[in-house]
Each structure stands twice: as structure tokens, then as C-alpha cells.
């Protein structure tokens, strides 16, 4: 229960930050993708189910506010969360390289899928331009933000987990 509430607050926090504060702190009109960081890190920290649920909620929020059709971003984020959940077994809190790689990979895949479905299908073929001006800058900026945001998420997760373990011990 407590975990659900904290997850909801985190999602809301990241979403609001992304479309307000980071819009003012953008570089060349590019904002980092905090929701991908959240979805991916919950995916590999907590497993497939949590990853896909967090992704679904993040995507749905984006859909309601900024998309013409509801369901597209929810689908993309959900699958990213699910795939990241597959790496749960290889995850150690001390290791920062794998989470970084996963988040970069997720953001890149996200950008590419968005390009294919939202632009390529409308006949915008200049993939080089979109790659250099939207996808790659977004990945780089997201990576920089990850360095600051990821330890916070990790710490929150660690706190919650240790609390859950303690209360579980009581019942044994």
C-alpha cells in the first residue's frame, strides 16, 4: 500500500517536472525523459509486473494530456517497463553501469518507436535529421539527469524494501 502511494507520487512528480520545470531548462528545445528513467529503473529493480504497471501509468498520463489518441504512449512505456523487468535477475544495487545502459537503451528505443509510428508513417523520411536533432540529444540529456535522479530512486526503493523485509519478519 505504502509502496503504491509512493510510486504514484513519484510518477506525478516526474511528469509535472518534465512538462514544467524542464521545459524552462531545455537545451535547444529538448527535454530529458524522466518518465523513461522511472519506468526503466522500477522495471529492473522490482521486476516485470511493477515495470509494466509503472510504464502503463506514465504512458497514460502522457496520452491524456499530450496525445491525440489514448493508448499509444501507454503501450510503448509498458513494453519498455516489461523488457527492463527481464533484467531484474542481473540487477545489483552497487552496479551503476547496467542501469545506465538500460536507461539509455530504453530512451533510444522509445525515441525510435515514436519516430517510426508518429513520423515515418506520415511520410517524414529524413531519419538522419530526427536522429541528430531529437533522439540523440534526448538520450544524452536523459543520461545526465539519470546521474542525479537514479540514486534517489535507488534509495527510495532500498528504504521501502528494508521496511517490507522487517515487517515480513515480524509475522514469521
Amino acid at each position, binding site marked *: 500500500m505504502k509502496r503504491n502511494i509512493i510510486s504514484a507520487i513519484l510518477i*506525478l512528480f516526474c*511528469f*509535472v*517536472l*518534465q*512538462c*514544467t*520545470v524542464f*521545459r*524552462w*531548462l531545455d537545451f*535547444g*528545445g*529538448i*527535454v530529458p*525523459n524522466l*518518465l523513461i528513467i522511472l519506468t526503466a529503473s522500477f522495471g529492473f529493480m522490482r*521486476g*516485470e*509486473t511493477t515495470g*509494466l*504497471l509503472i510504464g*502503463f501509468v506514465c504512458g497514460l*498520463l*502522457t496520452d*491524456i*494530456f*499530450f496525445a*491525440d*489518441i*489514448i*493508448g*499509444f504512449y*501507454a*503501450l510503448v512505456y*509498458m*513494453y519498455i517497463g*516489461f523488457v527492463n*523487468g527481464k533484467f531484474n535477475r542481473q540487477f545489483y544495487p552497487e552496479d551503476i553501469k547496467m542501469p545506465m545502459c538500460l536507461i539509455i537503451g530504453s530512451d533510444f528505443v522509445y525515441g525510435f518507436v*515514436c*519516430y517510426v509510428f*508518429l*513520423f515515418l508513417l*506520415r511520410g*517524414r523520411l*529524413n531519419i538522419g*535529421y*530526427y536522429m541528430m*536533432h*531529437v533522439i540523440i*540529444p*534526448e538520450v544524452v540529456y536523459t543520461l545526465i539527469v539519470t546521474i542525479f535522479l537514479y540514486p534517489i530512486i535507488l534509495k527510495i526503493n532500498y528504504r521501502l524494501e528494508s521496511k517490507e523485509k522487517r515487517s515480513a519478519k515480524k509475522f514469521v
Partner: protein
Amino acid sequence: MSPVIKKKGEKFTLPSKYLLFILTILCLLLVVLTFNTSLFNGPLGTIAGYIVVPFQRGISEVGSWMNDRSEELSEIQDLLEENEKLKQQIDELTIDITRLQQDKYELNNLRELYQLDSQYDEYEKIGARIIARDAGNWYSSFVIDKGSNDGIEVNMNVMAGAGLVGIVVDVGPNWAKVTSIIADNSNVSGKVLSTSDNLIVSGDLELMSEGVISFSQLIDSDNQVVEGDKIVTSSISDKYLPGILIGYINSISADSNNLTKSGCVTPAVDFEHLEEVLVITELKQQIEE
């Protein structure tokens, strides 16, 4: 044994594979449904609006304050130079104004003769503040802090200063989503003010970084349209009110078919620093089908 069946004394859990499958179906259904109808926008928008909008409103105030401070510092030097230039410009403009006032006097008289209403001043407008911008980097839509409670409806035109900003595409009780004319998925039917030739103005992500948008399908066989001409919304558009300034022609070139022309338009609105907008609370007259 099926993994979904609940065992006695065990907490009910659904394997992630099944959950993924169910939610995928749900998403696809939603996509198909919302592609054709706006069935879910109402209730979902209402709920999300009450949860998220208050936060966005507060934080975007803080964000814009921080942005203002940082820009103030970096722009002092520019402002000093600009001030010099502007002072010179004021002198020139004062002369122009006196000349224009005479013209306007004449124009008013002529309008009365023709019983033409002066257009744009007469539209009812309400001001709104931008509280959030698109979360992704692909389109440029934004959310404003007025919604259906304030009388805003879908398809209302949005202006800032003297130019067209975009159109309301989605409304909640206390928020509304505006797609700007520079967004890649937006098309506006416009006309060249001087020659009344129609054209299509469409947003383009590739050109957005240069601060221009593209136009196409201009039929100008007499080569009368030149760079710097004003483009306004045309009267044949079914959503945009006529006569709102879109921008000025920046470059123009003939298409390969030699019949139409296309090029770039510099928008009249500074989309980079947009904070407050005006929503015209008048809808284009629709013909009942």
C-alpha cells in the same frame, strides 16, 4: 495447473505475462476507440485534470520565475544595445503613426460606407496562462489553465499578441490542450493578404529550430507574391476564423510542377517565450450536415 488459480492462504497474484497481455489488448482497444471517437477524453481528462493541473500550475510559476531571472542576467548587455536602437525606432515610428492615423481615419470612413465590421478587435477573447508543455520532444502542444468551466470549447482559436498560436483540441473542466501551428501535425488554411491567394501553412519539426514553418500549394501564376507578404487565416478554413495574422513570407520558390509555390513563413508569434495566450471564445460558423 493454471498459474492464475488462487491457492488457499496465498495472496492472489497475476503473472506478468498475463497482465501484459491484458493491458496490451486494453491499450489497443483504447487506440482504436479514441482514433475515431472522443469517448474517453471527457472522464479521463476530468480525473487527470483535478490531480495534475494544480501541481503544474504551481510549478510552472516557479519555473518561469527561475527562467526569467536567468534570462535577465544574460540579456542585460543585449538590452542596452537594443534600447539605443529602439529609441531611434521610436522617432521613426512616431512619424509613421501620424501618417497612419490619417490613413485610419480615412479607412474608418470607408468601412462605414461599406458597412464592414473591423474584424479581429470584435472577437470576444479571454486570457489564459500556459501551465505545461508537451512532455516529449516530437510535437509542440501545451496546456492552458482555463477549461470548460470558463467557457472554452474544442476548436476555439488561440492567439498571442497579434498572431495566431493554434487551436484548442481537448478540454477538461479546468484545463485545455492547445496544438500550436508550428507542431508537425498541424495544417492551417491561409491566404496572402495582398493578393488573396490561398495556401496551406503546415508546421514542420525540421524547420522549427530555425523559427519558421512551411507553406505549400500557393497558386500565384502572376508572380505577385513576394517575401515579406503577410499571411492571414483564410475564410475557407472550417475551424480558423478569417483574418488572423499567421506570419510573414520568409522565402518562396516554385514547386517542380511549375503550378504551385511553396516556402517558409516566419510566425508572428514568438513561440519560444510564450506564456500568456488569448482564446477567442467564438467558433467558426459550422454548416449543419
